[in-house]
């Protein structure tokens, strides 16, 4: 199948075949990363601009390693010290980015939808590295790749996503990657942190809501715990972090409710002892470090599909 998409803004309208193509390409990139010299010339001569208007180290470094492994030139524009902090409008930043002549803009932004704004106004390919609460498609794809690696086919598998669903772009992108692959998703978390429409029966296709985490985990094939932002308590959405940890934290006892060897994922950075116990985070079921490695490979796959030259297949 020839790749058709110009941008990666969200996978909410992607077909199963498109997602599978990315995951298969990711497999090829994992192989590249396993070589003694972790580099291919697939993006030689291409420029990738990393535009991070919101602080992030992990995702930015992951993209940077991915772009460099493909021999692309990489330029960083980060929030601190850049004109973004001086009150430059996004419209102006896009003009600048376009004038700089990048082939791919990888962007993170605090405002949901900002990548659509940029994609409409530039000739470059845009990859969304996280926009507000909306989407983080490379995280969704790397989680799907990681789960597929652990479970084989995802058809008929049931994955639990627990935590602050409302404010989580990871949750939305996990749903948008896992459901098209045939998995079902059980959402769990405090009612104040799950969109009201999703609690009232209007959950996205392929998902259900189960506030009781124990019941959600019973017989599940895997779980993704989300990071809890501590400011949610100050906003009045939670009585206490302690109560949250007790009720929706992944303890060793709890994860045993899942099928034997059902994996545990977390997008990081973790609050150990809040949404996940340290023993679970570093235990036998944890794939959290594998996620980090796979993240580089998924980003390589997308950069290659969007901007690679066909004759230089990895």
């Amino acid at each position: 199948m020839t790749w058709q998409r110009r941008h990666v803004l969200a996978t909410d309208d992607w077909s199963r075949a498109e997602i599978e193509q990315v995951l298969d390409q990711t497999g090829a990139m994992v192989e590249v990363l396993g070589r003694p010299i972790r580099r291919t010339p697939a993006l030689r001569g291409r420029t990738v601009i990393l535009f991070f208007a919101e602080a992030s180290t992990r995702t930015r470094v992951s993209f940077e390693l991915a772009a460099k492994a493909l021999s692309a030139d990489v330029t960083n524009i980060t929030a601190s010290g850049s004109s973004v902090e001086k009150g430059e409008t996004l419209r102006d930043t896009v003009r600048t980015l376009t004038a700089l002549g990048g082939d791919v803009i990888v962007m993170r932004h605090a405002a949901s939808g900002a990548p659509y704004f940029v994609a409409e106004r530039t000739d470059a390919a845009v990859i969304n590295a996280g926009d507000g609460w909306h989407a983080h498609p490379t995280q969704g794809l790397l989680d799907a790749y990681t789960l597929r690696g652990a479970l084989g086919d995802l058809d008929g598998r049931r994955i639990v996503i627990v935590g602050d669903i409302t404010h989580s772009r990871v949750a939305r992108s996990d749903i948008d990657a896992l459901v098209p692959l045939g998995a079902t998703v059980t959402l769990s978390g405090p009612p104040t942190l799950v969109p009201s429409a999703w609690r009232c029966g209007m959950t996205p296709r392929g998902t259900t809501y189960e506030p009781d985490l124990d019941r959600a985990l019973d017989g599940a094939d895997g779980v993704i715990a989300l990071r809890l932002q501590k400011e949610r308590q100050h906003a009045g959405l939670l009585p206490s972090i302690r109560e949250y940890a007790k009720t929706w934290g992944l303890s060793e006892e709890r994860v045993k409710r899942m099928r034997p060897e059902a994996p545990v994922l977390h997008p990081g950075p973790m609050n150990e002892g809040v949404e996940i116990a340290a023993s679970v985070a570093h235990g036998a079921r944890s794939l959290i470090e594998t996620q980090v490695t796979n993240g580089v490979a998924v980003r390589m796959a997308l950069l290659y599909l969007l901007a690679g030259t066909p004759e230089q297949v990895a």
Partner: protein
Amino acid sequence: MSGLADLERDAAQHGWLVSPGFIDLHAHLREPGFEESETIATGARAALAGGFTTICAMPNTEPAIDSPGLVAEVIARGAAARAARVLPIAAITRGRLGKELADLVELAAAGAVAFSDDGAPVSDGQLFRNALEYARASGRPIFEHSQDLALTADGVMHEGVVSARLGLPGMAAAAEETAIARDLSLARLAGGRLHLSHVSTAGGVELVRRAKSDGLAITAEVTPHHLALTDEWVAGSRAFAWEDGGDRATPYETSTKVNPPLRTASDVRACWAGLMDGTIDAIATDHAPHASTRKDVEFQEAAFGISGFETAVPLLLAGVAAGWGTWDRVVEALTTGPARVLGITLPENDRVVIDPNAAWTCDAAALVSLGKNTPLLGRALIGRVVACAVDGELRFDLTRIAAS
């Protein structure tokens, strides 16, 4: 210059619709303070292009219209524009700050036709009660933007399945409903003339219906966009509430950001039902023009508002064509309905002439308003205002504009 009789004869020959000039209870003309978005003159001309021969100017300018001198200034500039008749609405509270009452009696004497802190609901219940009571002495209605600000906080669109999908903070229907419930209770207590601006929710319509059946003397309006568009438009849909499928635009278009937000198709249906059974008295545009700098930004940063004068007629005709309402009732809600809210008689020699079959493209060049911020931009629309007369004088003539 043709007289009214000529205008009506021409219209009859073409099969055009003729009606008394429309009255818009709710418009933002942005002057003084935001003249890059609209001026009283450009707004009054845009109003005529939309069929409105009388428009009520909201006081959320800079400075706010909260003194008799400013009221007089709006009247003077409106008259100088020689377009639509401009009636000033004055602020309820000084500076629209919600702290102390403006001089309502003096403002009314200077020509304010109503009072409103539109965009800034009066949160303090006691102050709002005082405003209703004191406004009785002025004989003018209070136009309230009913919204519980604590509930809407950072909200930028209707809270529901679409906001959940888009990851945007929502404004629950309950934020409008609880505020309307409070305002109705206070109107019952205080007396005075309460008019509810831009009711947008099924629950809000039902509260007004029940209050009216209890005999409370209140009135309410709905906007054309709340009678046609849904929250799916924020996600890129361009289907009217009565349509399925259709073209899609980019999601997060800031032209769909408006307060109260675009609601669901069932809310749209309820607004039409309220209009048809008389619960809703008037259709008002909430014309809210913005310079591109306020809209060419991230969705969460963008200003609220839709430029509404010039698309009202095609939106309403589309709703009528879909069978959700009747044209006769729409015309009432644009003429006698708002006149009753203001306590005025319909200006005898104002006319609007509409070609209900005219197809036109709503592009930036076609819009008279400086505000091009409408999600209908670039769309083919059916139905257009051909001419308007104010006090017997032909002040808008599309054929002449097209020729020049």
